[in-house]
């Protein structure tokens, strides 16, 4: 049974601890390939495209920290005409197993009516992780596309996660899709970031969401609220991104501290009762 990992640095450590230094090198190779392939490329919400690859890899690694699925997650969008990379080129660097996973995900996306039980479960998990992160950053899409993806998630993908025994992933997919259907997360006129409950979401927000995922569930809202107050104090796009990445890098240790340090009692803790915004 693979050990699950919680964050990027944790993930590399877990991959290496479970599978050796060659496994870590494979993941780092995939990281380098994806970073180079997507350099200068941005998502519709204005975030660097590569951030999506890392986020999907962290989600996948949280479920299965074998090196092949994590590496495949990093390069899952690299077999695209924009990158100029072919399956053969990727195979030389990452091996046939990784490329086969990526090709199956590409096939799922192209065909649309895939019999998931015939697909390698690792590729299915990757597809589900990709969709989950896309739901978190769906605000820049048109409302029609948001609803189409949300309904597909509810009707097809979340049940697939159930069948794979991934209850946590299924729950995350359903709750994110239901929120999209309710219109809690909608596109903004600038098309660069969304907003929730009337509050604009800043650049780097999806990275902060990833960071919060590493924390105990009961503390996520409190930290996201704090980080939002902080990041909105930064005026420049790049500064906000640096802040978000800093927070993500520190999140595994923050999670460790939050879990370890026991509360000193309700009257002794500073109050979070007035937490004003819950994402």
């Amino acid at each position, binding site marked *: 049974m693979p050990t699950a990992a919680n964050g990027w640095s944790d993930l590399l450590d877990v991959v290496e601890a479970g599978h050796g230094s060659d496994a870590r090198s494979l993941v780092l190779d995939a990281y380098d390939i994806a970073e180079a392939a997507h350099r200068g490329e941005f998502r519709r919400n204005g975030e660097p495209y590569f951030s999506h690859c890392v986020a999907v890899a962290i989600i996948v690694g949280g479920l299965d920290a074998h090196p092949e699925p994590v590496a495949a997650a990093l390069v899952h969008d690299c077999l695209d005409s924009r990158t100029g990379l072919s399956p053969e080129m990727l195979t030389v660097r990452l091996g046939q197993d990784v490329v086969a996973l990526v090709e199956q995900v590409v096939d799922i996306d192209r065909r649309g009516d895939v019999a998931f039980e015939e697909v390698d479960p690792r590729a299915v998990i990757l597809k589900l992780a990709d969709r989950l992160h896309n739901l978190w950053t769906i605000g820049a899409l048109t409302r029609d596309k948001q609803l189409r993806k949300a309904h597909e998630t509810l009707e097809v993908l979340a049940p697939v996660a159930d069948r794979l025994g991934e209850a946590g992933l299924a729950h995350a997919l359903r709750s994110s899709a239901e929120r999209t259907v309710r219109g809690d997360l909608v596109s903004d006129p600038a098309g660069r970031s969304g907003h929730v409950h009337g*509050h604009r979401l800043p650049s780097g927000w999806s990275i902060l969401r990833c960071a919060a995922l590493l924390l105990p569930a009961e503390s996520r809202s409190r*930290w996201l*609220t*704090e980080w*939002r*107050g*902080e990041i*909105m*104090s*930064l005026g420049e796009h790049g500064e906000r991104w640096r*802040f978000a990445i*800093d*927070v*993500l*890098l*520190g*999140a595994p*240790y*923050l999670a*460790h*501290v*939050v879990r370890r*340090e*026991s*509360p*000193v009692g309700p009257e*002794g*803790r*500073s*109050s*979070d009762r*007035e*937490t*004003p*915004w819950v994402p």
Partner: protein
Amino acid sequence: MTLATRAVLAAFVDDPAGEKYGLEIARSAGIASGTLYPILARLESYRLVEGYFEDPATSQEAKRPPRRYYRLTRDGVELATEAQRRGATGFGGFRTGATA
């Protein structure tokens, strides 16, 4: 105590009763945000700092999301003062060169 923790405490020393939000503390301490929050979480659990979200009415007036502010407790003031004294007498400065 790590240099980074001492740097965080030192950020309050000039105005021990003052309140600061995370970015202010990080800038003053010369540390990254990813380093800051675990330190604040630990100091808060030890009751050396106390944190609170500002009044939503204040942030609405300023047209920005609410900030979480931190200030030293009485124990925190004592520790920060002691850390500064030790820093000034051979433990090295803690306003610069802080590490995690």
